[in-house]
C-alpha cells in the first residue's frame, strides 16, 4: 500500500476509531451474557444469544480484516486465495451439519428415564404451585 504521510495520518485516525469500536462491541457482547436486562429470549444461554454473539464477533472480525489487514483495498490475487479458503471452510462446517442430521441415538429406555424435558407454562402451574404463571394478557 503506497501512501503519503498525510494519508497515513488519516489512516492512523481510522485505526484508532476501529479499535474503539471493537472495544465497545466487546463490552456489548459481555453485557448481553452477564446482565439479565440485556439478555435475549430465555434468560440464560439460548439460540438468540448465540446468534447475537456470533453476529457481533463476525462484525468485529470484518472490521479487523477490512481495516487492519487492508482487505478493503487489496490486490486480486489475495481475494482469489480467500474465496477458496472461505469455500473450503464452509464445506468443513457443512460436514459437521451432515453428521448432526444422522446422530447416534441412545437406547429408548435411556431416553425415557434420563431425558430432561423442557418446561412450559402448563408445567409450571402443575409442578410448582407457588410459581403459577399469570394468564397471558391479550
Amino acid at each position: 500500500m503506497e501512501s503519503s504521510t498525510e494519508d497515513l495520518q488519516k489512516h492512523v485516525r481510522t485505526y484508532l476509531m476501529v479499535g474503539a469500536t471493537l472495544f465497545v462491541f466487546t463490552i456489548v457482547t459481555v453485557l448481553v451474557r452477564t446482565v439479565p436486562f440485556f439478555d435475549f429470549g430465555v434468560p440464560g444461554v439460548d439460540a438468540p444469544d448465540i446468534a447475537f454473539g456470533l453476529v457481533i464477533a463476525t462484525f468485529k472480525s470484518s472490521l479487523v480484516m477490512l481495516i487492519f489487514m487492508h482487505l478493503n483495498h487489496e490486490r486480486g490475487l489475495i481475494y482469489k486465495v480467500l474465496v477458496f479458503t472461505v469455500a473450503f471452510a464452509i464445506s468443513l462446517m457443512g460436514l459437521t451439519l451432515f453428521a448432526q442430521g444422522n446422530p447416534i441415538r441412545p437406547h429408548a429406555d435411556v431416553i425415557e428415564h434420563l431425558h430432561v424435558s423442557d418446561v412450559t407454562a402448563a408445567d409450571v402451574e402443575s409442578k410448582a404451585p407457588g410459581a403459577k404463571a399469570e394468564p397471558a394478557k391479550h
Partner: protein
Amino acid sequence: MEIPYTVSARRDTGLFNSKVGIWLFLASEVMLFGGLFSGYVFLRAGVRPGVDLPWPDAVYVHGPFIWLGFLNTLVLIASSVFVVLAWAQLKMRRYGMYQFYMSLVLVCAAGFMVVKTIEYNSKLNHHFGARLSDGTLLDGALVADDSHHCPGDYVTFEADKAVFSLARTGIFRKLDPYFLDFAVLKGGEEMVVNAPGGKQLKGVAELSAWLEEYAAQNPREARVTAGFAKPVTFQFRRKDVFGKRVFPDRVPLFRGNELQGKLIDDTVEIEVHTVDLQMVRDEEKSLAWAYLGEGYKAGYEGHKKEKLNDPLHRRFLEKGGTLPGGQLRIWQHPHPAGEHGGEKAAAGGHGEASAAHGSSDGHGGHGAPVVSIKGSDIHFMGAHGPKFGTYYAIYFTMTALHGLHVVGGALVLAYFLFFGRKLYRKNPEHLANRVEVGGLFWHFVDLVWIFLFPIMYLM
C-alpha cells in the same frame, strides 16, 4: 543470494512475495482453526440432554474468569491497534514511534499470556468436579489446608500383602516397586516385607534388589506376592491409583502392582459451588441431598421456583415459549433455605458433612458448603482439565493452540523490534514490509480470539 521481490511488488501479482506467502499461510491457518471450530460445533450440538455429561454453561464455569477473558480480549484488540500503528509509523519513517508501539504490542502479548496462565492454573489445580454414581454433578474445589495440601485427594489403605509386577516397563526397564516411593507410610512405621523363601526385606532399596534377583531366577513369572511382617498403612494420591478406583480389600496401582488389605479412608472433601442435576433421574432423591442435607434441598427447590417466577421467564412462558429443563437443574453457590451460614451442612446417610477444612460452620471460605464424599459414591472426578469432559477438552485444545500462536507471533515481532535497526538504516521499506507481514499474522491471532472468547466464555 538476494531474495527477489521482498521490497518492490512483482509486476504480475502486484504484491511483494512475502505478502503472498503470509496470505497463503493464513489460508492454511483458517482451515486449521476452521476444523477445530467445526469440531467444537460437532461436540456441542452432539450433547444429548440427560444422557451425556452436560455442556457446562460457560458463565457458571468461568465465573470471575469471564472478566479475565474480557480483559484478554481488550488486550488483544489493543495489541492489534498498536501493531498497525507501528507499521504506519515505519511508513512515515518515525523509527522511535515504531519502537514505542511495537513495545506496547509485546507488553500486551506478555499480559495476555500471564492472564492465560492464571486461568489455566486455576482450572487445573483449584477447580474440581465429581460426578456421583446417580449422575449428580458437584462442581467446586478440593479443600486444601494451609500448605495447599488437599487431604481429600488421598486414599488411606492398611496393607498386609503386596503384589509386585515382574514386567520390565518404562524407560529404564527396572523392576522397581516405584509406587512405594510416592506412598506415604503413616505413623513413621518401618516397612518389612516377608519375601517368599523366608527372607525379610527392610525398606524399598532391599526390596528392589531382591525383586531384580527374583525376576532373573524366575523369568517366566509375571508377578510375585509378598506379605508385610506387620500391616503397613499407606496414603496415596488418588491420581496414583490405577483408574482412580479403590476397593474395600485392594488398591490397584500402575504397571500391574497391587496392595491388598483393608481400606481405611476413601473420602473426598469438596467445597461445593454448583449442583448440576441434569443427569439425575429423580431430583428429589439425588445423592447431593444425602451429603448437603435437607436445608440445601429446600434451597434448591426455592431457587428453582424463584427462577420460574422471574419476570423474564414468566413473560417468555406465557407467550408459549419453553425453558430448557436442564438450566433449571443447575444451582450455583447453594445456601440452606433461610439459613445463610450458621448451619452445618447436615450429615447424610452416605457421608459426613465436614467442617474440618472449611470454616467451623461447615462452609468453605466462600460461604459454600464442604462435604466429604465416599469414594464408592463417585463415578468420576477430577480437576477441570481436558479429561473432565468434551467442553474442557476442546477448550484447552483451542485456547492452548491460540496461546502458542500468540507466543510465536510475539517472538517474530520481538525480532523485528530488537534486530530491525540495521535493516531500517539499509532499507526502511523492507522493514516496513516485514512488519506488515508479521502484523497480518498478529491480526489473524486477534481474529481467532474474537470468536474464541464468546463461544468458550460466554455461551
